[in-house]
């Protein structure tokens, strides 16, 4: 059976041509920092598809006519947007693909309880964006004795942990937490009032340090599972109380 020769020829031609095309398409431009204005009006986003290239450091400058939660799926980054106030939404476009954006408008007086009180999201400490290598410090105050303070990086919620503040004084006065690309280590630290905690961003991309649980973890803080989609999936169980609307996509093209 003389299948071999032509099949081989076909495959060789095919592979070589594809390789050429692939190589040609790899016009090597460098990743850049991008500011992209995004408007959400009448529950529609413009532009509807945000196009960036792999590696770009993207800041979406979001303006919405209605407050709500802006959620970039799969990257699993979420931000609370207040009506008519420009909000920066930062992410590094590491993964190529087409990712859904949903918006969950939050009506008047409908804010999730606990989220904006003192112990909640960002209520205790909140860093600016930390470039790789940068650090952020916070000193535990005396009234926090006996509390557990969760923290995370808003730009990558997988980086999170707990600060457990003991009541009794001992002699620990400084503790270091390291952000890597995978996790915050140590995940849990025991400190006492007066301890200075220093976070060092040793991951490859900018991060933040913010107290409280990431919005996705509020329901179940065991982490691990990518929870960005369960809000939609679990719609029935919540019986329509959440109205999450698909408003557009981010397309990350390979570079």
């Amino acid at each position, binding site marked *: 059976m003389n299948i071999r020769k032509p099949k081989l020829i076909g495959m060789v031609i095919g592979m070589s041509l594809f390789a050429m095309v692939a190589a040609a398409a790899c016009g090597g431009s460098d990743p850049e920092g991008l500011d992209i204005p995004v408007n959400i009006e009448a529950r529609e986003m413009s532009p509807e598809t945000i196009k960036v290239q792999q590696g770009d450091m993207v800041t979406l400058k979001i303006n919405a006519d209605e407050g709500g939660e802006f959620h970039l799926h799969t990257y699993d980054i979420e931000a609370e947007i207040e009506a008519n106030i420009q909000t920066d939404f930062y992410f590094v476009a590491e993964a190529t693909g*087409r*990712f859904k954006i949903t918006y969950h408008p939050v009506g008047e007086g409908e804010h999730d309880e606990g989220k904006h009180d003192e112990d909640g999201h960002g209520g205790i400490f909140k860093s600016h964006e930390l470039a790789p290598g940068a650090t952020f410090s916070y000193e535990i105050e005396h009234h926090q004795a006996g509390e557990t303070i969760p923290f995370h990086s808003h730009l990558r919620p997988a980086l999170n942990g707990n600060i457990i503040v003991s009541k009794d004084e001992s002699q620990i006065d400084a503790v270091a937490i390291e952000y890597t690309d995978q996790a915050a280590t140590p995940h849990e630290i025991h400190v006492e009032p007066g301890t200075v905690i220093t976070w060092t961003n040793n991951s490859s991309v900018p991060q933040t340090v913010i107290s409280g649980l990431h919005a996705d973890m509020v329901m179940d803080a065991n982490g691990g*599972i990518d929870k960005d989609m369960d809000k939609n999936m*679990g719609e029935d169980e919540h019986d329509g109380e959440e109205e999450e609307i*698909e408003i557009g996509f981010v397309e990350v093209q390979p570079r």
Partner: protein
Amino acid sequence: MKNLKIILPAVAAAGSLMVWPAYAHGFGERTELPVPLGYFLIGAGFAVALSFLFISVFVKASGESSYRRFNLLGTRWSQATLTSPILLTPIKLFSVLLLGLVIATGYAGESESLLNFSPTFVWIIWWVGMSIFIALIGNIWALVNPWKIIFGWAEWFYQIVRPGRSLSLSRNYPAKFGIWPALMLFVLYTWIQDAYTKGDIPSQIATMAVVYSIITLGGMFIFGRYQWLRHGEAFSVVFGVLSRFSVTEIRVRSQDSCPVCSVDCRNLSGECIDCYECFQRSSDRELNLKPFAIGLGRNEKVTNDILALVVLMLATVTFDGFSATPAWAEFQTFILDTFGNGGSEVFNSLVLADTMGVILFPLGFFLVYLFFSKLMAISVEGEVSTLEMARIFGYSLIPIALAYNIAHFITLLLIQGQLIVPLASDPFGSGWNILGTVDYSINIAIINARILWFLSVGLIVLGHMLAVYLAHLVAIRTFSDRAMVLKSQYPMLTLMVVYTLISLWILAQPIVQ
């Protein structure tokens, strides 16, 4: 899957913003980029050009259907290892355990789909992952099918308790039913996958597993284990077709045991291939490595029920992709506009639209295929009837569907499939950490879009070539002279180019749901 989506322009323009659950392919979120125009055109060009190259080169090919094989059971050592109960029994136990776990987590676990083992396992690991494994490597389902295993154990136990009697009623399976029962069950499964809105809910998955278990064990009880597996167990039948493409086959060399078999499984060349019943009973058996796709070109009689299954599989694969394109979203919007958005949560206009897709796509495929079969029949001056043309060439279209299927699902498998790592540690979503993997976070950059495009288009062109080759093989075997072989192949080539282009076109569409 039940992502929320808005039905775009028409409805939004009317001022009412609607939120609809959408669900292509059961469960999971798609993230792949559309294949760029350049890749599409090159892929299309290659499909056409290679087809003609092929035709001009292969005129001399012979119709001989033998091929090189390597028997993995050839040595005493390998036979002892590969058939050893020490190896196989734990695998079987594990498989039955997994079925139990799907049912248990479905009913008792967390109701959020992503925090529960069953949706990710059933829709992504088992259905997508195992289909691809079977199509490429071999029919592992014949080994791990939990219902087959359970019934086998029950029969063995019954033999001990009541020696000399058989657990099954062993009613004669009416030959005219063919594989229609399996086909009907597979249509239902397809509908659940592509149109039913609740297919991702753990408790629903558990119920489906229970109902299907009852049907399958009941079928085995009435007609006998192998009779039902061959005709009524949808997945054995479907995976059986897929595994023909794979690099392995089982074969019984001396056919002394075949008459004991409940069905005469020998093909027109007198070979007994992929008959698991004979394989189990025979001592003179082979587990062969073989070239890809060659199992789709066997010399055997293809009946109408098998033709229907093949067409259904071809159409289903395409519809699963097509239902995520903007074109289909427009159709859904049209149906919504026509019938209103009323209806219950399960039976609403959106489900109606997708149900129409699940039914109309196979019918449309069948009509188109019949049309091309008719052209083939005309081109050979009626030497072979239209329907017979359709039957004998059906299998040869499978490689295109399979290549498209892999291109279509690979991202889902590689990204969402990772969910199984944390879920394995905490199947019920109750805070366990059995394997210590619960904190695993998904690597969403695991496959680069450029590699994916290359792979997708490359696979489809390769699938197309294999399809052309298989059709050619069948033609040579069927027609008396070379001129007819060639003439018959022009309509078939056209059809294959069209099918390949449609597959590529879908990959070039942005996914909207």
